[in-house]
């Protein structure tokens, strides 16, 4: 099998990207427009705003919430969300007694159709390493100081199931519409390292 030279002896990733693209385009193996399409999709069309719609709908529509918890993949499809890294979506609900959070210790698997591409903190060795060993200390450092009475469950995405957290609806949001609620829902709350606040 191929072994690459060590990065210290190798051109920078930036220039290697250009070189690889040129080589594959010359050989007719990739189309730059298709690459543009991939990028455009994950910069503009797919991101935490998708997950936020799912959460807001589950908060206002208890039937939807039940469907979502019973079969996340299908319920997300109802809103048009599916595709790569969303083959099987499992939605887990946070409660006053149980806090859930998601990690991928082996790489950085993440529910792309609902949240887009993962942020740097999710890919950081410290997050990947510590979340399964000292989640409470880690969450506290990240700004979420949970009372001792709250149990913590950490979901390690080691296969093709993608976990998505349904955060608790904050108090004081009774009068808000689904759209207004969606605006409150942060990416970090849907990974389980934050809670949603009334804003």
């Amino acid at each position, binding site marked *: *099998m*191929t*072994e*690459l*030279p*060590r*990065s210290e002896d190798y*051109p920078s*990733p*930036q*220039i*290697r990207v*250009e*070189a*690889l*693209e*040129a*080589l*594959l385009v010359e050989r007719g*193996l*990739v189309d730059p427009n298709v*690459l543009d399409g991939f*990028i455009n999709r994950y*910069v503009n069309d797919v991101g935490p705003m998708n997950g936020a719609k799912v959460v807001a709908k589950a908060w206002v529509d208890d039937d939807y919430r039940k469907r979502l918890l019973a079969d996340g993949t299908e319920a997300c499809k109802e809103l048009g969300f599916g595709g790569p890294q969303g*083959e*099987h979506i*499992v939605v887990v609900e946070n409660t006053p007694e149980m806090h859930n959070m998601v*990690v991928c*210790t*082996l*790489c*950085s698997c993440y529910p792309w159709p609902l949240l*887009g*591409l993962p*942020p*740097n*903190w999710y*890919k*950081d*060795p*410290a*997050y*990947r*390493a*510590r979340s*399964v*060993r*000292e*989640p409470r*200390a*880690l969450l506290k450092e*990240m700004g979420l100081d949970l009372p001792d009475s709250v149990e913590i*469950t*950490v979901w*390690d995405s*080691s*296969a*093709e*199931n993608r976990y998505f957290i349904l955060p608790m609806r904050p108090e004081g949001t009774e009068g808000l519409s689904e759209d207004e609620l969606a605006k409150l829902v942060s990416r*970090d709350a849907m990974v389980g390292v934050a809670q949603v606040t009334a804003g």
Partner: protein
Amino acid sequence: MDGIHDMGGTQGWGSVEIDPNEPVFKEDWEARAFALSLASMGVSGTNLDAFRHGLERLHPVDYLSEGYYGRWISTAELLCVDSGILPPGAVAARARVMQGEKVDEPADVETQKPQYERGGAGSLREIEDTPKFEAGQTIRASSLRKSGHTRLPAYVRGRTGTVIARRPAAVLPDSTAHFTGEDPQHVYTVEFDSTELWGEGAEKSKVRIDLFESYMEAA
């Protein structure tokens, strides 16, 4: 393999910083690396499991220093060279040419894309095998160490947990990454208590992790 990528429970990494204003891609090349990496699996005739294994095959120092999309572009190159789509050294030579150096670029080689039977798109499969485990059952994760790709992290190996759910069957990454077949298996979510994993002094919590059937034995 027992590589630097298997980070669960490892120590010494310091703290995590959240940048609330982080863009999807910090630099343009990262976006290009992302798209090229997705494309590389198709053009090299490989798959997602081989891509993940490619990340693991990078030298640990490179793995840690190149950053996420730096790792991806190295792996995209690795898969293209593995399959003969590009000759070894082609990317470095072209990169040097692009930087104005006079470098001979290597000639193309014969392609040798992996040959193996795929049971469909994606990773999920319908299988008829009777599931060996059921929710509520106590199991022990295999303690076997492998040199190839696996999705059984070191931190659960040999540890005892409880099956909480069966998930859709899926191709076994250990086989698929090496193109020896798909070997689709049942997959289970298994719950481990933090004290079982890390000892009595550990924070009280649970880890739930997805395990392929062959990673598990009745306990």
